[in-house]
């Protein structure tokens, strides 16, 4: 497609804002739709919804009289629910909360949000779509269609306990060799309870989030969804997994309890001072660094993921949640009104204090945020070089084999090459099957 999605809606936005600028006196467009009693919101049950549920929704109800009916589900159930409702249902959902990795199948059921933004521009002249990080704008766009407004963005950054590194006489690492040295020094110093590194390595959705920054920073990739070409068993990726595995099995600088840690485990491990460094989701800085719940509260500092040879190679992933209005809803205008309210500057600023990681530049660079949430600017910086996670329809099945491979390497059952060759084999097989089926 010659026109990039961004170009497309920037133009529309431009027209819209011109229209708005031309006449701020323009009356609110008459509601084409009747006012519903409630809007049905379907999302996951992550604990970062506090702001949305406890503050935005009541405020929305107060100003419009419309109740927001939240259905918050465990993530697997959410996928099944959306899948069934969006493709076979009768428009029972007004606001869909979807994850970047779902874009491949969710997008086709969503409205064109560039158009919605354009239509509503006169109502919300200060919404400022350009305030969203460009990478995050891309995250909400699939096949040229803006399918939602980003609400939460997560990315992997390096967490380290500043004082421990200083005591060990090492600087915050900028490349793999320094990372290893720092991990060795802090492991030695913290033995037996505290290790240099902590991973999320329980076999499950978290473990790829833990490994991917290493893969990206080593210049590795999973596969190309268009051509079906597989990169995961090529030298860059193999090197990344080898290094990752060696931290556990060869140098013994990673806390072996990592093998049972998922999202909550890495936070608990950090809070209990089980490791000096970790590469994990930026917003976890909040819970780990809070002295009220964490033994290590106040001890943490953040920087970008080290590159293989130098910091310029630093890479990480980009993931997050969008709020979107599906095609089938009967309450488009009101649903989008809520989405815009939730993602407005003011509410996004508020949400970061309640555990969210909002993707607006103005929030991430707000001076009060800098002091209260020091991980946020590092996350903003990391997002500039972050690569979007896979979200093609193949990924749903493709994500399983690498989980097993990482597990095998961390247990020392297989070398990185053997394990990733096996992943490549399975992908060949499943890509072929997908091709046959489609």
């Amino acid at each position, binding site marked *: 497609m010659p026109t990039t999605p961004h170009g497309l809606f920037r133009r529309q936005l431009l027209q819209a804002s011109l229209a708005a600028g031309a006449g701020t006196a323009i009356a609110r467009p008459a509601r084409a739709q009747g006012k519903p009693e409630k809007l049905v919101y379907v999302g996951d049950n992550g604990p970062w919804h506090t702001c949305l549920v406890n503050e935005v929704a009541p405020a929305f109800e107060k100003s419009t009289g419309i109740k927001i009916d939240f*259905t918050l*589900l465990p993530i697997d159930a959410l996928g099944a629910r959306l899948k069934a409702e969006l493709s076979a249902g009768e428009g029972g959902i007004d606001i869909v909360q979807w994850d970047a990795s779902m874009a491949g199948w969710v997008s086709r059921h969503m409205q064109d949000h560039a158009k919605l933004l354009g239509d509503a521009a006169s109502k919300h002249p200060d919404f400022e779509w350009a305030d969203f990080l460009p990478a995050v704008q891309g995250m909400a766009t699939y096949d040229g269609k803006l399918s939602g407004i980003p609400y939460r963005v997560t990315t992997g950054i390096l967490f380290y306990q500043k004082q421990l590194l200083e005591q060990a006489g090492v600087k915050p690492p900028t490349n793999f060799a320094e990372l290893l040295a720092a991990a060795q020094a802090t492991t030695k110093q913290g033995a037996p309870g505290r290790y240099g590194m902590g991973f999320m390595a329980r076999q499950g959705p978290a473990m790829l989030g833990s490994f991917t920054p290493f893969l990206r920073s080593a210049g590795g990739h999973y596969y190309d969804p268009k051509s079906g070409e597989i990169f995961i068993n090529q030298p860059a990726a193999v090197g990344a997994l080898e290094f990752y595995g060696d931290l556990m099995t060869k140098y013994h600088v990673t806390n072996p309890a990592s093998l049972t840690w998922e999202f909550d485990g890495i936070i608990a491990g950090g809070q209990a001072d089980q490791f000096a460094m970790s590469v994990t989701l930026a*917003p976890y800085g909040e*819970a780990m660094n809070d002295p009220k*719940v964490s033994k290590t509260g106040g001890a943490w500092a953040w920087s970008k993921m080290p590159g293989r040879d130098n910091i310029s190679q630093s890479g990480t992933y980009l993931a997050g949640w969008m709020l979107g209005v599906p095609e089938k809803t009967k309450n488009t205008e009101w649903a989008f009104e809520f989405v815009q309210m939730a993602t407005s500057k003011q509410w996004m600023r508020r949400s970061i204090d309640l555990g969210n990681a909002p993707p607006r530049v103005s929030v991430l660079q707000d001076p009060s945020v800098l002091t209260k949430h020091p991980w946020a600017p590092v996350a903003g910086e990391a997002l500039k070089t972050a690569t979007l996670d896979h979200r093609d329809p193949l990924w749903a099945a493709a994500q399983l084999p690498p989980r097993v491979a990482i597990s095998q390497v961390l247990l020392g059952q297989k070398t990185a090459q053997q394990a990733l060759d096996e992943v490549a084999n399975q992908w060949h097989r499943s890509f072929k099957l997908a091709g046959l089926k489609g």
Partner: protein
Amino acid sequence: MIRRAPAWRIGRRRGKLIFNTFAYAALIALLVLFLFPLLWIVGLSFKTRMQVFASPPLFIWMPTLHNYAAVLGTGAFQHAFVNSLVISAEAVLLSICVGVPAAYAFARFRFAARGPLFMSLLVMRMLPPIAVLVPMYVLFSKLGLTETRISVVLAYTTFSLPLVVWIMRGFFEELPRELEESAWVDGASRFAAFRYVVLPLVRPGLVAATILCLLLAWNDFIFAAVLTNDATRTLPVLMASYSGDVGVDWGAMTASCVLVVLPVILFSFAAQRHLVAGLSSGAVKG
């Protein structure tokens, strides 16, 4: 009922003493194995965050009710509790109403579809829930039931209905056929004989079936995980969603574990006595 010691155990006293000592030792060891984990969890639920993570672990501490206050403070727990209660009760009621007459028919009459129907009930009983989960969801969403508790209630009948039929068939078969036959001779209709002669006699069976189905429904996770939403969420689903982006809150988690399990255990003990009463009523032939 008099307990008779078998003849082979009446014998040397000292041997018996040693034997009993070993028996008690084994029983106490088993008690520790089966109950200590549970007691430890109960203990954790009365600890503050710092006490939970103390090392070495505290065996004596000043108990706190903070965790219970936190769990009950949001209202989410109570809401899920009511959901669990209502859904379990409705599922059991439905299964009993639907299943008991069928069980009676299976026990007493021979009819065309008897074999296949009973066979399908057996298959239903051994069915892995995962096999029907997705199709069931799609079906219920077509019928517009996904926003209601009805969908979960219906889903629970997949295991409670076969159980009711199984249990009740056994109870009906144990009743002497002469009971109904004499009622029929006296001119009672099939329904009247069933309702007024047979049913009162199988009350112990009804109690047993109810208790077992309640347990299963209360304890189910997988159906509820997929079929419920915030409004209809049951306790096990709430439990599974406790961990998340803020680290594991052991105190709150153990407190809610206790709150989920306690009613079931108390109920079972109470029901155990009820079962005894039902059985000693003499309606069931020995």
